[in-house]
């Protein structure tokens, strides 16, 4: 297998998942790129994640009360899952259908929403939008529980069209009103009160007595539409396919201008978007054929490092490399901490700032978050006993010449490419370190700090900020 092949596989696993440790890359070394894509697209082929230990060491996870704990637990799943695309697509839909805990302060429904994205995220646009319309967290977040037959509330109807399916400019204010009428009576069962025993789950209910059964005209079609009919019509529109494909391209392929600019800024790669739209529409909105097309496309393969990592990608990818926060937790590895790390980098999971979701691309980065990103990655390799460091050292061989150290490290932790400035600066460092003897335990102990430092410096580069 050529190293170019391996680079491509690593690229695929960074985008369709959260990166791969050297061991995980070994596991796919005999598989063709196309076979790896198929495995990713079929999460049912992989084994379930073993959660016994993490739950035993984080007993509070049994209670669906604290969202930071469960959001951190999600990052733990990103690190340890054998079904990376299942978690990645859930994160994708969380980005698009941004629902925040802070309004409802009801953790069980937030957890359930992400579970729904895991379950249906690779299914069909129609299915996904229908599940979303019936999702209690979304229902409360956009006030559809306040959308009554005698007094419609348009918040959900508006955002469904503007932010979740078609995008501005493709419908009228009247269409919003009519769509909102169709979703009257779509609400949720009142959960048991919070006090004294904590949060209880809730579920969707259709309140017939509060539904407007009258005739509606939506996007030129007329009928006594219910919410499902509205979603059927939305899914027939090319605008919806365009909207979903731009989101998908921005998330999986290459940073795009942010969504408020979409009505004025064309896609970076209009040809790719057109092809994606055709695939999506000719497959009746099925996600799997679309993602298969994307991952196997030339534009995807050419997009290496054209996307700034979101904080989840940075955190999970780095912790895969250190081998910490694994199936068997070590002292101090409380999952809630992972939420905090993401928050200070600007991604409080399950708690996005607004219904527009996070601004992505270079907007992830400001002085404060760059400081957090760099220091987080560097600090993971301060401890010489992390399993990932021994693994890197064992892969370096017995003796490493100064001239080989950088290339070898880049190969092991990537395979990874650096621009000229970073490459030159790190070559200089390797030169200063000199040849390293790694033949026995004593010499390793003497030299492991140099290797850890090299890894730390690689993880602090501008290039490492990209996926």
């Amino acid at each position, binding site marked *: 297998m050529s190293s170019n092949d391996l680079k491509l596989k690593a690229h695929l696993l960074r985008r369709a998942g959260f990166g791969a440790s050297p061991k995980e890359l070994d596991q796919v070394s005999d598989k063709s790129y196309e076979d790896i894509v198929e495995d990713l697209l079929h999460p049912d082929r992989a084994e379930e994640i073993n959660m016994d230990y993490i739950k035993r060491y984080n007993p509070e996870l049994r209670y669906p009360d604290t969202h930071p704990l469960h959001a951190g637990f999600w990052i733990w799943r990103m690190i340890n899952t054998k079904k990376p695309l299942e978690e990645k697509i859930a994160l994708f839909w969380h980005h698009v259908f941004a629902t925040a805990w802070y309004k409802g302060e009801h953790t069980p429904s937030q957890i359930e929403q992400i579970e729904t994205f895991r379950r249906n995220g690779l299914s069909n646009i129609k299915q996904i939008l229908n599940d979303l319309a019936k999702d209690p967290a979304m229902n409360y977040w956009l006030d559809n529980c306040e959308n009554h037959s005698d007094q419609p509330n348009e918040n959900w109807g508006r955002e469904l069209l503007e932010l979740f399916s078609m995008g501005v400019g493709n419908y009228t204010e009247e269409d919003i009103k009519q769509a909102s009428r169709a979703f009257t009576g779509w609400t949720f069962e009142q959960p048991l009160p919070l006090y004294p025993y904590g949060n209880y789950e809730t579920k969707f209910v259709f309140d017939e007595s509060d539904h407007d059964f009258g005739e509606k005209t939506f996007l030129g079609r007329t009928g006594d539409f219910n919410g499902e009919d509205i979603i059927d019509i939305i899914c027939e529109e090319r605008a919806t396919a365009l909207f979903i494909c731009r989101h998908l391209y921005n998330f999986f392929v290459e940073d795009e201008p942010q969504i408020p600019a979409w009505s004025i800024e064309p896609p970076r790669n209009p040809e790719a978007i057109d092809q994606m739209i055709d695939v999506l529409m000719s497959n009746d909105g099925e996600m799997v054929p679309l993602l298969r097309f994307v991952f196997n496309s030339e534009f995807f393969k050419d997009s290496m490092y054209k996307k700034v990592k979101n904080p989840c990608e940075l955190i999970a990818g780095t912790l895969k490399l250190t081998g910490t926060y694994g199936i068997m937790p070590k002292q101090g590895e409380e999952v809630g901490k992972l939420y905090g790390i993401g928050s200070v980098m600007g991604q409080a999971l399950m708690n996005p700032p607004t219904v527009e979701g996070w601004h992505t691309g270079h907007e992830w980065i400001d002085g404060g978050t760059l400081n957090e990103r760099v220091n987080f990655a560097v600090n993971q390799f301060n401890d010489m006993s992390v399993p990932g460091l021994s693994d890197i050292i064992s892969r370096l061989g017995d003796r490493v010449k100064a001239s080989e150290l950088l290339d070898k490290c880049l190969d092991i932790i990537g395979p990874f490419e650096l621009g000229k400035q970073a490459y030159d600066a*790190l070559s200089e460092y390797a030169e200063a370190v000199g040849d390293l003897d790694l033949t026995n335990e004593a010499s390793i102990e003497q030299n492991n700090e140099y290797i850890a430092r090299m890894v730390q410096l690689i993880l602090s580069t501008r290039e490492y900020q990209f996926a």
Partner: protein
Amino acid sequence: MTTVTKKDPVFVVVQLSGGNDFMNTLVPYSNHRYYDNRKFLNIAPEDVLPLDNTLGWHPEMAPFKELYDRGMVAVVQGIGYPDSNRSHFRGMDIMHTCTPHEVSTIGWLGTVIEQMDPGKENPLTGVNFGVGLPRAMSKAGVPVTSVSNLDEYGLMSGLAAEDQRDKALKIFKDMYAQAIGSGPVMDYLSRTGSDVITGADMIKVAPEQYESTVEYGDSQIAKSLRDVARVHTADLGTRIFYTQQGGYDTHANQLPSQPGLFRDLSRAVNDFFADLEEHDADDNVVMLIFSEFGRRIADNGSGTDHGSGGGAYLVGKPVVGGLYSEYPSLEPDKWAKGEDLEHTIDFRGIYGTILEQWLGLEASPIVYGNFEQIHPFKNS
């Protein structure tokens, strides 16, 4: 511009996170409605530190009362925003972005910092102490420094040995050097990386040159305010400081927890101003202490649930002390939603007061409108 000093005016924000119970901060101890509704959670008339014959400070706020008695505290009674929905996050967002009816990501102080340093020359114009930048200070393209630990601030701060850290930083600078043709995002990363290094380089002199006889208490807010004092007295051009004290979400166990918070806060604020006075650095500093909302009028047996209508405080030598605006009415027919204090002044008017009368900036583009202001500054 109407400031009392030739030095550039400096503004310090202390955010009490969680929703502070205003009624148990400045207690209406002569009003029977207070005791009727606070059957469990009340401060007895004999325990308050009287401000006048109707209001008294919480007994743990003696050091704060001392500042008030010296005429350094303007109490803004009944600050709030329209249609409070009692969410912490929404409440904070509203107070951070000045947009009660829509969601915005532009922080009001982000705009202030941008106007103070349009050329982005000083990354220390705005400094936050704490983990994570508050939205009040964020605005796309505006560099702000956020410090979780002043003594360990900066890139590579996790590397223990100083010589190792210096070497790593030198390599970092080389790796982040700008180069032609690397693209706009790489350029942006270069600039941001170099801002962080510049900011950290500048700010590290603060702990080195700081000396003081003031001994702060052992609380997080004391530590943060000492950090503010260290950076302010180092004269690095910082105009906006931000920090917070958490823990005010006292649904339960308010009785044991609130006094500790007040003890820490009032001592820290008092120490902070003593420290500035010792450095002759207090005549251009005004502090705003605020919280995202007040709490429910009636207690719930062990705590108080989210409410609205709270209090804010402007503190400093340039301030004309006293009571401003009106204490929210405790008469049931005046309650908001039938159970909350109704605010008597919009927070955007208080921000406007600070912007126009202290910082010399036009308020309406920042708070989006004209709101009733107060006049709490000398010579204004």
